[in-house]
């Protein structure tokens, strides 16, 4: 079952705070930004239906919330693979 994207209780402000915390970490010890985002989403212990969102477009498919956030990291000023 899919939910509206807006019902997933993660705001851009939350993600911005995660990104800020990640940037403050030591570069030699911190995980990749992708792994860090996944950890933070897991910590929220949301139900499966909360984190799986139908990514509506021409070809709808279910996508994990963490993967969607990672896909949009550019809008937080972070490049992929950091």
């Amino acid at each position, binding site marked *: 079952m*899919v939910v*509206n*994207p*807006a019902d*997933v209780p*993660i*705001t*851009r*402000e*939350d*993600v*911005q705070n995660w990104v800020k915390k990640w940037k403050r970490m030591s570069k030699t010890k911190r995980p990749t930004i992708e792994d860090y985002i996944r950890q933070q989403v897991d910590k929220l212990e949301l139900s499966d239906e909360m984190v799986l*969102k*139908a*990514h*509506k*477009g*021409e070809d709808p498919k279910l996508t994990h*919330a963490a993967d*969607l*956030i990672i896909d*949009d990291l*550019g*809008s*937080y*000023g972070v490049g992929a693979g950091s």
Partner: protein
Amino acid sequence: MAQVAELKEITFPTQGWQGGINIRDAPDQIAPNELQTAENVVYDNAGGIAKRKGSRNQGTFGAGGDRVLSCYTFYRPNQNPQVLIHTSAGAMLYTNDVTATPIVWGSITTGLSTTQPASFETENSKCYFAETTVLGQWDGTTYNTIGSAPAGICYLRVWKDTMWAAGLSNPDRLYSAAAGDPTTWPALNFVDIMHGDGDKLTCIASDGLFLICFKQHRTQVVSDPALFTNHTADFEKGCESHFSVVHMEDKMYYLSRLGVCWWQGDASSRLISYKIDPLFTPDLLNLANMSLAYAYQLSDRCAWAVPEIGQSMNTLVIEYYPRLGPIYQISGNIGPGPWTFHRVPLTTFTTVRQGATEAVYGGHGTANKFMWLFSPDGTDDGATFQSLAISASFNFGSPVYWKYFRRVTVVGRGKFNLQFKRNYGTGVYATYVVDLRSSSLIWNSGNWNVGPWGPDSNLKRKLQSVDLHAVALAIQISDSEVNTGEQLIQVGSLGQEVTAGEWAVMEMSFDGFLLGIRE
């Protein structure tokens, strides 16, 4: 070999110019009610043509090299609207009274983009703007930035009580704020529009029913604001500029690569600028700068300013009159209306209704001036501008025989040059000055019941002596006058005189003779 035809009188009246400009058809195929070209000419009356009004400098802003990138009218209930301008100095300025001369500008913020025009929207009684560096919030006195907004957004649109945004960083991505709250942006509220198709989002608009996501070459519509369900509405046409969308009465128009389109809803748009088709080619327009195209709408007309070839800013205005189109008797529908061209000093526009006034204002293209367009002036910021209209070529029903005309009867007002082009040539064959200006009101003495009483007529008829030999003749009207004229609008028993351009022409009638064949 010359031949003399049977002598035949010719009397030929023009049919008016409700067809507008036609640069698509061959010169001999242009309809009698169309114009080969027009510049700085308006259609104040259906069928007539008139010189446009000028423009007025409302004052300067910033430093001498600053220019307006975009402008917006922020309406607030029970207060004067504010006009906001985003300048090339990276500043956002505002004024509480755009009708003042000079305008007094206040500063909202600085440090904005100096190249990407900000787009604006109003929601929850606040004005929001974005130009890739910030999402700004302005309530008329206080400025804030919305830090949680996606980076790089520069196109805003409110649809279904929600702020939507797109930008340049990710060419496919559309973002949505929380419903009713442009300050909160859920992390998963985005969707890619035709992901990876090689195109880019250029404009987001709304017809109320759909959120319309334009790319350069295709158009998608979002139908569900919660799930972002979207589908293709037009597989072939997109939109060139976020600032080229115009809502007028029951229609929405926008500028595509092929010309001006009429949005049809959930279906391919209809091109309405086919009579000026040849304009929309890389030979005549600077396609690289079409993202700067800017539209305005005022009373019965709307227009788009576009950059011509070799120009980095908008230099040509194409103006459209949808209400002057032909009315089809059976359906009652109205067909496409006439087009005209203007060259004005403004490159950006916003329509402002304030108190008893309503006018178009905008930024000057080559100076740090904010201008009033179509002000009651005969000049553009004090500079003379020329008007020009060239009719179709008339062969008077005989494409072979030469004709001779001794008289042309002109119905119109004002002062202008009446010129003629002969036999599809481009040079001017003959020039006459026609002065139909009304004389000023003066008191004088006279005998009762002798002669006209009351003010001099606004519209006049003049028999102009000419000496014209031709197979076909085109009429050219031009002027470089600096005064204004007046258009008389009869409202019941009151004749209201409204400031208008220097001249107007309603009809011309030729009378002459058919001669014969001449080599």
